[in-house]
Every structure is written in C-alpha cells, then in structure tokens.
C-alpha cells in the first residue's frame, strides 16, 4: 500500500465493487465522498437539535419530574401520564443512539476513504467537511 498522497484516477474505495478507473468515475467518487463528509457534519448538529426538540416537546413540569425521577431512581408508582412520557423519552433516546451508530459508521468510512491516500478523495473530504460545517453549525444556535 502506497504510504504517500498520489494524484490518480484509479482507486478501490471501501468495497470490492467500488473500483474507479476513469476520470469520470473518480469525479463521481469524489462527489459521493464529499456528500458523506457533509452528512457527517450534519449528523453531528442533528443529534444536538434532536435532543433539544425532545426536551422542548416534553411539558416543563414533566421534564423536571423526569429529571427528579431519574436522579432518585424511583421505580413503579408512576402515574400514567409520566409513564407515557418515559416511553416517549425512551424511544427518542433509542432513536438518538441509532443516529449515533450512523455517525460512527460514516466517520469510519470517511477515514477509510482518506486512507486510500488518493489526493482527490482527500480534497473531497476536506471540502465536504468545510461545506458541511458551514451549512450545519448556524442551525445549532437557531431556536
């Protein structure tokens, strides 16, 4: 495996079927990797937004009650409204964990693509991360 950056139109990325041997194929691959990097940055912001949304959608009183209950580890004795809130919270947190898995996998895929030491791919990752950060992070400070 070459251990230095090279400019080349040939690469095999991640999977056996993803083999590139033409400029057009390389351009398309760079675009896909770029979008993957954009998605990675977007998911990072998306996780925080998802958390804010779930915290806001719970009525304030029950969310405070939720905090108290998880702190005291009280079991049983929950009235039905709190049970429903607990279930919604559980589902939201489960969804967040799935998003986290996707984030981990995409992060590793981008790392492995950079490991191909193809300079075009690397530039695609850098550009995609920049674009993703530029587009996604302002959304973080919005309500």
């Amino acid at each position, binding site marked *: *495996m070459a251990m230095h950056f090279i400019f080349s139109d*040939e690469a*095999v990325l*991640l*999977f*056996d079927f*993803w*083999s590139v*041997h033409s400029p057009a194929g390389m351009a398309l691959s760079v675009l896909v990797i770029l979008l993957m990097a954009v998605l990675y940055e977007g998911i*990072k*912001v998306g*996780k*925080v937004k998802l*958390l*804010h949304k779930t*915290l806001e959608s719970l009525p304030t009183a029950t969310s405070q009650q*939720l*905090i108290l209950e*998880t*702190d005291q580890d009280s079991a049983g004795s929950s009235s039905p409204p709190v049970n429903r809130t607990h279930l919604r919270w559980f589902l939201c*947190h*489960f969804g*967040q*964990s*799935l998003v*986290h*898995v996707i984030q*981990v*996998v995409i992060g*590793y895929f981008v*790392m*492995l693509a950079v*490991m*191909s030491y193809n300079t075009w791919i690397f530039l695609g990752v850098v550009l995609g991360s920049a674009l993703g950060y530029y587009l996604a*992070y302002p959304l*973080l400070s919005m309500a």
Partner: protein
Amino acid sequence: ENIHQEMDHSHHMGIYHMDNSTMPPHHHMTTSHSHGGGDMMMMMPMTFYFDFKNVELLFSSLVINTPGEMAGAFVAVFLLAMFYEGLKIAREGLLRKSQVSIRYNSMPVPGPNGTILMETHKTVGQQMLSFPHLLQTVLHIIQVVISYFLMLIFMTYNGYLCIAVAAGAGTGYFLFSWKKAVVVDITEHCH
C-alpha cells in the same frame, strides 16, 4: 503495460468473486499478484470482507483463526467501543463537576451610536496543577489511545470486527448517555 496490469487485476477480482466463501481476499491477492515486487502491495485488505481465518488484530500475537476466536474478539471489541463511549461521558461529567474558577472579563466595545458598551465574557476553567485536571489528562490519554485502537480495528476491514465497533459504540452511547442527556448543557457543541 498499464492496460495489461489492469486487466490482470480485474481478472483476478473476477475469480475472487466466484469463490467468495472459501478464500480470504487478501490471501488470494498476494498469491496471484505476480508482477515485479508486488508481493507486499496487497497484504492489507483495502475493501470490506467477512472472514475469520488469519485475521491479525492490533498485535502480532493476536491472530484469529477459528469462529470461536472471532466470537471472542467480537465481544472484546464490542466492550472496548462501549467503554470508549462511557469514558467520553464520564469525562464530560467530571469536567462539569470540577470547574472551580469562573472569571468574568468585562471589556469596553464601541456601541451603535458612538456609545461605549461593556461586553462581559465568562470563562470557566480548572487550575492547572489540581487533581481534577491531572485526572482529566490521564483519562484523555486513555481516551486517545482507545480511539486509535478502535480506528486500527476498523482498519482491518474485517466486517465482523467493524460491526462490533459500530454496535458497541451505539450500545455504549445508549446506556451511558441515558442520564446525561437529561442534564445537558444547551450551549455545548458536539465534539
């Protein structure tokens, strides 16, 4: 000559696809890649594969050869990824609890009508030689080493081990973020 090499390569890839279930890909490539000094080139797999024979894991003494060993490695990698997520959450919690000094810096800035406004910055921090900071540093080193280990494990391109990393990270996040998510700091950015 370039065209010939490319044709050889795709021909061998075709053979590999036909007996997918029996031959580990990187072995197949080293034995049939026959031009020049090309023997070293395909030792490390560069695409995902599912196999449990002759899988080197991080250290030269850790070689997986049987399904049983692969199952053990899967569990170990799964637990390592879970531990990594837990360590991240634990460090965040420790940092929040140990932030002792809060400094308020006020500085004059020009306002819209030529008036002077006071802009106040709030800084939270730790003392450098305090025990919490030393503990954070030690945990940081452990976190860096484990994150590199997980990266190297994913770099084996072995499908089972990669799934173990992803599943362990998800499970660890699910279990350890459960309580932490309730007391999250809104101004915190993703790392």
